[in-house]
């Protein structure tokens, strides 16, 4: 896993630094009130900040999602299928790199936004769970569509699909998230459990869809276990929220 993680970091660090600079410059301008309240028409600077964070999130998700084998015919990901690493290792590496990127991004956001440690942890949980959910379900949907249309799907279609999966989650998050109100913590559990559920469904679908196409039959049981666990987390999360609100 270390080798593949190193490989992804080597390929992605320039893009990461660039995205980081955009975030720092914009967050800095926001923090020190350099930007006027109403920038474009009726949109205010907070809405634009959300939009920029959303764009960066989608961009990074799409780039990292590229490394995950889709099991499509003649797809460029065949390049990664040749190496002696299991798909689980590759997905693990993608999630490690994502976690590192999200931690760094959120640390900057937290510092510039004056968040405390609990808020920072909550922000990280939100973004990381959204990333795993979008990546796993997005990949599974790509697999289904590519099988359905019997051809590989190019990068732009992949990006559109990621946006479609991510948009409802992000909208739900941005509409309901106010890091200063106590009820966020119980609402957060409902959101995170939803993301865990989506991740489980995506993982299950990828196992069934032969993305993990090696004769490693343990994936059958792992996928079943993951989906049962995900469903349990979802149920408990929703019930907990319902009884605490």
């Amino acid at each position, binding site marked *: 896993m270390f*080798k593949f993680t*190193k*490989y992804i970091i080597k390929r992605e660090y320039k893009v990461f630094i660039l995205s980081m600079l955009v975030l720092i410059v914009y967050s800095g301008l926001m923090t020190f009130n350099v930007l006027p309240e109403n920038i474009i028409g009726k949109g205010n600077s907070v809405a634009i900040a959300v939009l920029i964070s959303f764009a960066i999130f989608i961009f990074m998700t799409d780039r990292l999602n590229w490394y995950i084998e889709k099991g499509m015919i*003649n*797809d*460029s*990901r*065949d*390049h990664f*299928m*040749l*190496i*002696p*690493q*299991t798909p689980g*290792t590759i997905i693990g590496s993608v999630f490690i790199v994502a976690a590192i990127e999200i931690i760094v991004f959120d640390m900057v956001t937290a510092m510039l936004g004056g968040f405390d440690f609990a808020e920072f942890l909550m922000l990280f949980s939100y973004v990381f769970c959204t990333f795993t959910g979008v990546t796993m379900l997005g990949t599974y949907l790509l697999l289904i569509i590519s099988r359905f249309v019997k051809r590989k799907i190019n990068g732009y279609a992949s990006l559109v699909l990621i946006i479609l999966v991510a948009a409802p989650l992000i909208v739900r998050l941005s509409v309901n998230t106010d890091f200063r109100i106590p009820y966020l913590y119980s609402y957060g559990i409902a959101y995170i459990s939803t993301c865990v559920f989506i991740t489980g469904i995506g993982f299950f679908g990828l196992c069934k869809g*032969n993305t993990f*196409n*090696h*004769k*490693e039959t343990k994936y059958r049981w792992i996928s079943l276990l993951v989906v049962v666990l995900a469903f349990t987390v979802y149920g408990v999360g929703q019930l907990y929220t319902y009884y605490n609100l």
Partner: protein
Amino acid sequence: MIKITNLTKTFKLKKALNNFNLEVGQQEVVGILGPNGSGKSTLMRIAAGLIPVSKGSLTIDDLQPGSESKANVSYLSEVNAIPHGDTVIDVMEFYSLFFEDFNKEQFLLSLESLKLDKEMKTKVRKLSKGMQQKLRLALTMARNAKIYLLDEPLGGIDPLAREEILDTLIDSMNEDSTMIITTHLVSEIEHIITRVVYINEGQVLGDYECEKLRMDEGVSIEEKYKEVFKNV
């Protein structure tokens, strides 16, 4: 080394391989020949661990194709799967990082003999199709693997470049290794292979030692190909 028993691969209703049986031993250079859609590439993709079998088994040194067997198998795919934007150096580093048996010096020597040594910083997708194929072959052959699987190594290559590629193939072949080559260009690989397997509709139509074919029957591989596929 490679043992294929009653192998069947089904894509929905179509059987790409149908009860396919074959055993390939060490040091053999086997040519698998057959028309389009006969199941050659499917067989190679299964052996390379890219797609699963539907029924039967294929083992490489008693291992099922998967992450472990990939360490011993060097596979040249029919299509170029090198990511967009990668330069020749990037791909070399990729092989060097993930394949312990990758010999960088041998790769650089192959590039020199294929006149690709001045293209190290060029993006692979910007190279001509022939040059891309030469590069991919150099990468595949620079591994000291136990088994080489070459799927259409001469596909889309002009006759002059084909000679260069075949020379590279012969020069970089490890004597202890096993090699399986699929191609439509029967006559071109005649002097490389030691054994020929003719396949059609996912089944073996004929399996011959090349030397015996020439000595006993007095025919070339191409002539035998025409004879085998005459009534198909």
